[in-house]
């Protein structure tokens, strides 16, 4: 198992995909900050509404206590931008692509044949892949957090940066790591089931885009029974994770739901990998 892990991390180090993923995430963060700058400028009447394709539906001309125009950027803050990155599934989409490439190429390139039936059990091979997949996702998320925070300095200014509630940022990031780990294993399960790069990426992104809508529908269906399935779906938790005032109920639910989904995905993945033929 240690040898397999060693080889997997070697492959990760050699993979360019993770660097490209980080670059794309950085560009997305930059665009988010840029959009906020534009919104502020539109609100303050410095540029026309609709410039660069940004339309503010309700221009806010209110002022703060000191009489200066309110800044959306400052109101949202660095934590808010982080929330957009994670809750808006920007990070999730890139992570889906990264994990799919890392997992599915073993099947599409046939390299999994070099391991199966060579003295390692199939569960060992699966877990040796799963651990780096989780670490890959967490490292990627950590880099995105770091980049988003660092980019905040020139956009927000040092004063705003210093005033950020870092405890909340850490808590929020910790939760996103937790959800990210579970989702990474779900992506891996999708990769194992599809074994096709295009299909794997499509299904993973489709799940990201539409599952929260589906769970919202389920919430309506089960409304009469006072059940809310979305409370137990890890992607919903990722989107609805608060950025401050974390309640004990959410903390407990978040930890349990993430753990359960991670275990379910891992077990299903191992069961399928044990039985399925390798081509």
């Amino acid at each position, binding site marked *: 198992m240690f040898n397999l892990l060693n080889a997997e991390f070697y492959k990760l180090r050699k993979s360019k995909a993770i660097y490209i993923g980080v670059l794309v995430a950085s560009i997305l963060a930059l665009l988010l900050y840029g959009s906020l700058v534009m919104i502020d400028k539109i609100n303050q009447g410095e540029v026309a509404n609709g410039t660069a394709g940004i339309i503010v539906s309700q221009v806010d001309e209110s002022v703060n206590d000191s009489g200066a125009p309110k800044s959306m950027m400052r109101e949202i803050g660095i934590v808010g931008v982080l929330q957009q990155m994670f809750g808006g599934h920007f990070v999730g989409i890139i992570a889906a692509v990264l994990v799919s490439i890392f997992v599915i190429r073993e099947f599409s*390139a046939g390299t999994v044949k*070099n391991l199966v039936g060579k003295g390692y059990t199939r569960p060992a091979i699966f877990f040796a892949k799963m651990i780096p997949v989780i670490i890959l996702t967490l490292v990627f998320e950590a880099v995105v957090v770091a980049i988003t925070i660092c980019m905040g300095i020139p956009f927000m200014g040092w004063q705003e940066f210093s005033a950020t509630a870092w405890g909340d940022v850490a808590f929020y990031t910790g939760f996103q790591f937790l959800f990210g780990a579970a989702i990474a294993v779900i992506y891996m399960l999708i990769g194992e089931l599809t074994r096709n790069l295009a299909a794997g990426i499509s299904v993973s992104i489709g799940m990201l885009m539409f599952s929260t809508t589906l769970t919202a529908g389920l919430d309506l269906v089960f409304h009469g029974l006072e059940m809310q399935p979305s409370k137990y779906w890890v992607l919903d938790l990722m989107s609805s994770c608060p950025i401050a005032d974390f309640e004990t109920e959410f903390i407990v639910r978040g930890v349990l739901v993430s753990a359960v989904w991670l275990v379910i995905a891992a077990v299903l993945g191992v069961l399928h990998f044990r039985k399925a033929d390798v*081509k």
Partner: protein
Amino acid sequence: MEYALRTHGITKIYGKRAVVDHVSMHVKKGDIYGFIGKNGAGKTTFMRVVAGLAAPAAGTMELFGSGDLEKQRQRLGTLIEQPGLYGAMTARDNLEVVRKSFGITGKHAVDEMLEFVGLAQAGKKKVKNFSMGMKQRLGIAIALFRSPDFLILDEPINGLDPEGIKEVRDLLSKLNRERQITILISSHILGELSKIATNYGIIKEGVLIEEFAAEDLKSRCRRCVKLVVDDVQRASTILEERCHITEYDVPKEGVLRVFDGIDNSWVINRELVEGGIHLKESYLAGQDLEGYFMDLLGGASNV
């Protein structure tokens, strides 16, 4: 007799079709076993079952006399269908992944293997830019990396130029001779296969129809007159008494193969007809290897 591989009724079913149908194969230790069949005959699927990549629907197998396949498969080196390679990595990186996966100590093992398969000069070239031949050689390097006792190679000379084919052939002969590695090899290039194989197995529509040694093949391909008659017993008597022929055999019911006096085959025909034999067919046969396999497989396409 020690066997590297012995299977009993291995069957693999896809949908309702038995792609491999009760195959009982015997590969002796030290053999180079040529596995022959048309495209879709079940060669690759059978090899995948042996390598543990696919589970059989029925049947059992032994590797090196043991049913503990998980353990014995560690002694296998396989190259089945396309070699499993990371296109964005170099040959060295690909072998490094294999080296780390199996905990082989010493980086020199990678250099030695690259040298052994003639890829030492491939340098920083990425595998996706390799020629088919280079990829095949790297695939063989991966199969050989753990010093296996038994190599399973599916079409290893596919896509190689004549020089590459000779290199692989020499390499396999050398491995078999010097390291006593048993080899199960499938190939469409029968002429090449016949240069190294010590035994053959022929698969048709999932069924292993014959297994025989290379020496048998020579006698089977010997020049002869093939006679299709109604009464083999009486025809044999006529051959012996009237034509004074003793070198003949009966490969199957109603067929005689005469190896003696074939330059005067008209005499044989005349004597048989005069002896009251219903001679349905009489023709000179004497096949090369490919012709023989074509006959067995019942057609010339896609062997």
